[in-house]
């Protein structure tokens, strides 16, 4: 088990600045997930830690040792790739044993380790087969097996589940989490899937355009996003953003939407301009059943545009302040398109953003 410390890491490909000063500390034994849209530099960061890309500027320390100039094989790490990277000409056993053989380990030790890893992953019966005879999920298990037999100090995953179908992905996600609980090895996991990030991580690192946008525990990042980008990236369906103008409404500030609706603000807001963006997650924007307005509650009535039932919940699309928003209601309450729906949300759950910088306003 070991910790990773990255400071002021820069990386350029030609004229493209891919990593723009990454500072990151990963405590030993923690499961950290790097998440962000494609092209944000998360895979490059992972590959740089693995030693597959050279460090442009800055330092990477694993267990306190600067690994900038170490070759990948000298870093004692294991990596699981998106397309499994299994050798088609080797049996499953030899695929798992590959790293051990490369390090000239003795046969009986190789047998011992491969068999115990196979047992752990439930692929003992497949050891004599070849990769092309395996299903996607089995291949991924073999790839993970190849990584764990090495007993590395750091585990790297590069979007390992994105080639699997949805059901298998859920299953493997659980297994990877269990693997981390059983082994306790430091893991760094790259994904563009926010659900994977939320479910797996001890800590989420959200990246955007070569920089870390925000990091913290999944719940913390989800509930207190530092920027509009973070709020929009995490959560499904996406958070609703409603823009409006800041106006004075007697003793307090309020927000006027483009359709004329006035929403009183809970406190004085240090806004830089005259406009402001309100973010409200679909699960906090629900059907209003009570005719009385509680303190801090905002009520709206809008015609329904689209109804999307999912079984347990139903998503209703309406228009607020000129933008399409999604509200989440109980399955039974769903109306029909064209009908007027009464909605309400608690201002406590609203997050406000500065429209120009995108930063959250607290």
């Amino acid at each position, binding site marked *: 088990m070991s910790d990773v410390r990255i400071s002021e890491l820069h990386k350029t490909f030609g004229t493209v600045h891919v990593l723009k000063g990454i500072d990151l500390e990963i405590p030993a034994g923690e499961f950290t997930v790097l998440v962000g849209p494609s092209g944000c530099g998360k895979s490059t960061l992972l590959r740089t830690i693995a030693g597959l890309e050279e460090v442009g500027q800055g330092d990477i320390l694993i267990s306190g040792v600067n690994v900038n100039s170490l070759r990948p094989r000298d870093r004692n790490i294991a990596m699981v790739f998106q397309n499994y*990277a299994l*050798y088609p000409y080797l049996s499953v056993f030899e695929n798992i044993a*590959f790293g051990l053989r490369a390090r000239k380990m003795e046969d009986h030790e190789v047998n011992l380790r491969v068999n115990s890893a196979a047992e752990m992953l439930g692929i003992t019966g497949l050891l004599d087969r070849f990769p092309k005879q395996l299903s996607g999920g089995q291949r991924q298990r073999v790839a993970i097996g190849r990584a764990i037999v090495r007993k590395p100090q750091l585990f790297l995953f590069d979007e390992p589940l994105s080639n699997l179908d949805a059901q298998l992905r859920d299953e493997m996600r659980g297994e990877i989490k269990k693997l981390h609980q059983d082994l306790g090895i430091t893991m760094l996991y790259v994904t563009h899937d926010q659900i994977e990030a939320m479910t797996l991580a001890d800590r989420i690192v959200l990246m955007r355009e070569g920089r870390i946008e925000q990091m913290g525990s999944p719940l913390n990042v989800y509930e207190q996003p530092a920027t509009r980008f973070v709020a929009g990236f995490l959560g499904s369906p996406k958070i609703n953003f409603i823009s409006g103008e800041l106006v004075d409404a007697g003793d307090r500030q309020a927000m006027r939407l483009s359709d004329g609706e006035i929403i009183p603000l809970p406190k004085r807001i240090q806004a830089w301009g005259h406009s402001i963006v309100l973010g409200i997650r679909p699960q906090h924007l629900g059907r209003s059943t009570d005719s009385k307005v509680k303190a801090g509650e905002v009520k709206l009535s809008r015609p329904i545009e689209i109804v999307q039932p999912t079984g347990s919940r139903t998503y209703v699309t309406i228009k607020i302040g000129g933008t399409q928003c999604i509200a989440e209601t109980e399955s039974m309450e769903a109306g029909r398109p064209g009908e007027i729906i009464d909605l309400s949300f608690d201002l406590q759950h609203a997050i406000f953003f500065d429209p120009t910088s995108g930063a959250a306003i607290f």
Partner: protein
Amino acid sequence: MTNFSLAATRRWKLACRYGLASLLLVFFVFPIYWLFIISFKTPDEIFHFPPVWYPKSFQFANYAVLFKDGDAVSVLNSLILAGVSTVIAMIFGTMCAYSLVRFKTGGEDFAVWVISQRLMPPIAIIFPIFLLYVYLGWVDSYGGLIILYTAFNLPYVIWMMRGYIEDIPLELEESALVDGCSRWAVLWKVVFPMARTGLFATAVFTFVFAWNEFIFALVLTRTEVVTYTVQVTHYFGGQSNFWAKIAAMSALGTVPVFITVSLLQRFLVRGISMGAVKG
């Protein structure tokens, strides 16, 4: 149109197709058949008119003479020259190709420059090479011809292997690097097995090029390392041509390539089609 006439048309088309295929087969196979059959004929049968399509008895005297006179050694010479130069060209060519693909050695267009060397007609450089070889004392030696054949085959090997190596998923190599392999080990444990089909196909063609080479062998050999292609020309005389020897020598020279290609046919077909898909 009735069913009957439809079936008849189909039969007619099929017959045409088979007829055409048979014609082409005869066209291409007959010269080879004729070569082999002459090598088993007596001098009378060779010059007989109308031609003897099939000799009454097969006789091996023409071959026996080649072995008795020591001419058959030229096949062994060809085997050594083509074999050794193929192995060397394959080893270095594959390493060059790997470097071109993975490290972009020499830039993007370097590979095109390399293959352009292959387009140069040998006759254009034969004279300077001859003078150089005389100066170095390399004329009529295995080493001299092996170096030359290797140099001529390298661009082809580099070009072909480049295509095959580009097809290997990068992750396989990266995974091996992380798992504890050096670059050399990656080449040996990942690249060679992954490009096995291409390696065999390229090696066969390289071997055949060197095997059939004539002009350098003609100019740069005297008595010691005469190849079978040059040996055959010795039987064309001012007064007469020794057709029996020409045929027997040529047949002897065809056999090793024939065996190699039949053994590796599986790889050959797959290797060529792999390259075709890659383009």
